[in-house]
């Protein structure tokens, strides 16, 4: 991705399922569709396996956004993994929103193995959204606590 | 000038890795800093805190004898995060060590006596240090008897050394495995350690018994020794409790008012009688 040094390049981690979205992202490549390179893909057997802590840890370690994507409803390789995941994300989003964590930085999607173009759009749209939002320093700076002087616990 | 930070480990190079039994390894460690190596001494029975950088610290005894200079050895079983991290290290890599900590076996006082070593399973390492210490100064001691048992033949550690001890004319070596743990070609004893001690019936006359093993083995071995005529001050063991600091501060290892890391790990049975058994 060409950009001048002033443009903020978001760091994005994508947690995807092996059976649909990973294959879809693969298809994007083999179809020679161009899309933003800001995404680091982490492959999981199923969206049902994606623990909410992975998302929090991504932010703590410098991600500006997270993509979570798997099979469309009724297409799960394990029948109901994505339904369980969907419930988890409903609850997780609600908790994060209550805590004041920026839920716009988590993008959920269903991308099937046939949707190479959708994957490219998803990534491109997320990158442009996050570029507009800017880096997630609000969260990241809190991670560096031990270096701070002071013992009264103030962040 | 500035004192040393107690928690800062010495950097050690893993000089040699020996696979002892499934999940059990021995590391031979050498100091990377010559000054630290020169200033380092320890005695039989002491322990240390071993670091896998990236994982944390774990407590094991120093398994080599103080008579073997220039290195220390530790033997551990892979059970958790730290031992898992250590286990993945190869020869030549760096790990950390701090110590030596704790008290020691009174080897000086034992001069001129018979020594009876009774060990079970992964508890041989602390005793191996004493055994080699005694064998390297063989003229100081009379009869040396070693009774060592493990669950299965596979679980016996220091196999080549067991053989060496067996072949020495000046050592009486008895190896045993739990019933069912033997292989078709097993030539040693079959039975639990306390049973074998009773069968071997070593004389208590002028003898020190050093017992080390899982709590259940110790529990059943003590009465056998008593029956053979060993009094409490003739029996020694080494205890372990969970530790973090190794230097009497973190608050984990105490048994009653005693700290295993400072007042132990070596205790005579006479001393054990004074502390609450439920806390170790």
């Amino acid at each position, binding site marked *: 991705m060409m950009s001048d040094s002033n443009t903020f390049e978001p760091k994005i981690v994508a947690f995807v399922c092996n059976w649909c979205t990973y294959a879809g992202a693969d298809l994007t490549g083999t179809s020679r569709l161009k899309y933003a390179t800001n995404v680091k893909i982490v492959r999981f057997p199923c969206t049902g396996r994606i623990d*909410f*802590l992975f998302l*929090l*840890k991504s932010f*703590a370690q410098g991600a500006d956004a997270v993509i979570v994507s798997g099979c469309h*409803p009724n297409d799960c390789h394990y029948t*109901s993994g994505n*339904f*369980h995941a*969907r*419930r*988890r*994300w*409903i*609850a*997780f*989003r*609600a*908790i*994060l*929103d*209550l*805590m*004041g*964590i*920026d839920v716009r930085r988590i*993008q*959920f*999607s*269903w991308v099937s193995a046939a949707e190479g173009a959708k994957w490219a759009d*998803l990534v491109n*749209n997320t990158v442009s959204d996050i570029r507009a939002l800017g880096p997630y320093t*609000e*969260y990241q700076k*809190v*991670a560096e*606590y*031990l270096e701070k002087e002071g013992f009264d*616990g*103030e*962040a | 000038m500035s004192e040393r930070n107690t928690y800062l480990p010495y950097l050690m190079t893993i000089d040699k890795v020996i696979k002892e039994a499934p999940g059990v390894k021995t590391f031979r460690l050498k100091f990377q800093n010559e000054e630290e190596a020169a200033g380092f001494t320890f005695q039989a029975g002491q322990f240390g805190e071993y670091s896998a950088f990236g994982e944390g610290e774990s407590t094991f005894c120093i398994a080599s004898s103080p008579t073997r200079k220039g290195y220390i050895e530790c033997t551990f079983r892979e059970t*958790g*995060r730290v031992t*898992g991290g250590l286990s993945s290290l190869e020869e030549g890599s760096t790990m950390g060590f701090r110590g030596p900590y704790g008290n020691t076996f009174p080897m000086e006082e034992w001069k001129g006596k018979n020594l009876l070593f009774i060990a079970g399973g992964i508890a041989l390492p602390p005793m191996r240090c004493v055994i080699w210490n005694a064998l390297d100064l063989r003229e100081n001691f009379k009869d040396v008897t070693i009774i060592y048992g493990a669950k299965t033949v596979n679980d016996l550690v220091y196999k080549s050394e067991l053989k060496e001890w067996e072949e020495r004319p000046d050592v009486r070596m008895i190896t045993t495995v739990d019933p069912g743990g033997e292989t078709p070609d097993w030539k040693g004893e079959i039975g639990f350690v306390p049973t074998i001690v009773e069968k071997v019936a070593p004389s208590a006359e002028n003898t020190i018994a050093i017992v080390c093993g899982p709590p259940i083995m110790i529990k059943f071995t003590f009465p056998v020794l008593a029956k053979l005529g060993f009094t409490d001050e003739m029996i020694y063991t080494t205890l372990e409790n969970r530790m973090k600091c190794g230097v009497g501060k973190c608050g984990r290892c105490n048994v009653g008012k005693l700290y295993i890391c400072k007042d132990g790990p070596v205790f005579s049975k006479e001393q054990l009688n004074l502390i609450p058994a439920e806390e170790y």
Partner: protein
Amino acid sequence: MEKLRERAAALLADGTVSLVIGFEEGTKRPRPFFCRTSDQASKLIFDSRCFHNLAVYVTKKELVGKEPFAVTAPIATLRSILQLYVENQLKEEQMLILTADPAGELFELRSFDEISAYVANFELKRGEREEEILHKIEGMTREERWQFWLNEMSQCFKCYACRSACPLCYCTKCVVEVNRPQWIHPWPAPLANMEWHINRAMHMVGRCTACGACGEACPVGIPIDLITRKMMEDLAPEFGYIPGLPARQGNALSSWRLDDREQFIR
């Protein structure tokens, strides 16, 4: 209250139960009390000041053993007990409930269904304190909420009183004590504290009965109970359950519906 004492004494005397978990007068206010003989029953009290959620003790094997026991349970405790039944943590035949309604009438409840029927008479409502703080939070922007909670979380020193006081935190080894991998730093630090509390809230989704024990227990006064309470209030209609009235159909996160809301999924 007198009737409850008499009944507890009788149950202990005739051997129906070997223990009554109840309340006694403490140094400042009533506190949990383990009544094992009928003469001790005169110390039992049961009034509106009894706020501890005694359900936290009923899963502790070292306390309750295998013998039948009774619990003098206010409504909040009953809600937790129902949830513990749903999670198969209790045996109906081992436990007997003694409770009294606001008018002072004594009730004896012996099964999930009896407790459910009794609890259904009471609506789970925000108290004054909950209303005040939640109203404040609901009026905040996202950035203000983040600052609010960050400031609160910075006070946490990970004594885990919240976890210990919660009847539904009955795991013998908590996720923060697992170290392969170590997901949440075991030391107190603002972000690690935040992660811990988010984690706790996630593990409470559809399980929390809003008894408030965690917030009450917090020595540094973080209103952590409001996280799980708000969660329960907001998600109950979404997942189709009645707040504070656990049903046997399974927990929110271990079940799903084909038509669960998904407008946030692109």
